């Protein structure tokens, strides 16, 4: 797999999903940047590492109110972005946080990286945004 070029924006996301609107805001920002042709790398730390597990499958569990409805999993949402913007978008998972939470394996295209990689990513990014909360 070819090395990814430096990102215009690196988002270090460590806050927990299911706890706030954090993921909504992150995805809105990612979407806006990608539409502008900017490159974005998400570094998923903490419980954010849970979002891209292959075991999540393509869909959320069934809705008992509407058994026919299908809702995409977070893994499918990230996979969709990776497929749509292969040259601009990357999603890397902190290996330590993932192992510490039993999160993995991840969907194709998501890279698991050693925590020591974060400094390299920050150095290579034009702008880094740290979204804490782990």
């Amino acid at each position, binding site marked *: 797999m070819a090395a990814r070029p430096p990102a215009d924006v690196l988002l270090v996301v460590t806050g927990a999903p299911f706890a706030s609107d954090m993921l909504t805001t992150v995805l809105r920002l990612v*979407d806006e940047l990608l539409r502008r042709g900017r490159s974005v790398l998400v570094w998923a730390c903490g419980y954010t590492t849970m979002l891209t597990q292959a075991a999540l499958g393509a869909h959320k569990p069934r809705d008992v109110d509407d058994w026919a409805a299908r809702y995409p999993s977070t893994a499918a949402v990230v996979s969709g972005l990776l497929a749509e913007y292969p040259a601009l978008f990357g999603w890397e998972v902190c290996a330590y946080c993932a192992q510490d939470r039993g999160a993995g394996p991840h969907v194709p295209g998501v890279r698991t990286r050693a925590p020591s990689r974060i400094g390299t990513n920050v150095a290579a990014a034009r702008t880094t945004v740290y979204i804490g909360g782990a």
Partner: protein
Amino acid sequence: MAGRYLAVVDHAYRGGPEVQFCDLFYLARGLHRQLGGLDVVLRGPAVTYAVDTGPLPRLRVGARHLDLPDPRRSLRALLAADSAVSVDEPALRALGLTPDRVLPGVVCRDSASLTRDWPDYEGVWFL
């Protein structure tokens, strides 16, 4: 209220694309069914869950558009299932909002009276 449970919600807006349809009140309605009765009190920032509004913005992620949680729709379903939903009125007013903004069927009450109801419930759970 004998035999019923009380669910208090004061931490709001927990999750968007990771939650979608499965919000707190979807859970509460499931508990309501299983336990034979569950009422809901909203306080703190969660009072805005009961404030009526129009259609919510969807989340655009690349080519995909997602429906985010719709707590008013979920609350309406809970009310339709005969769960009582109350709002802590001082918390509502602290945000500059008034009781005329809340969904039909939701009752606004003072904080102390809501707490005084606790002994009448089988259990009081913060969701």
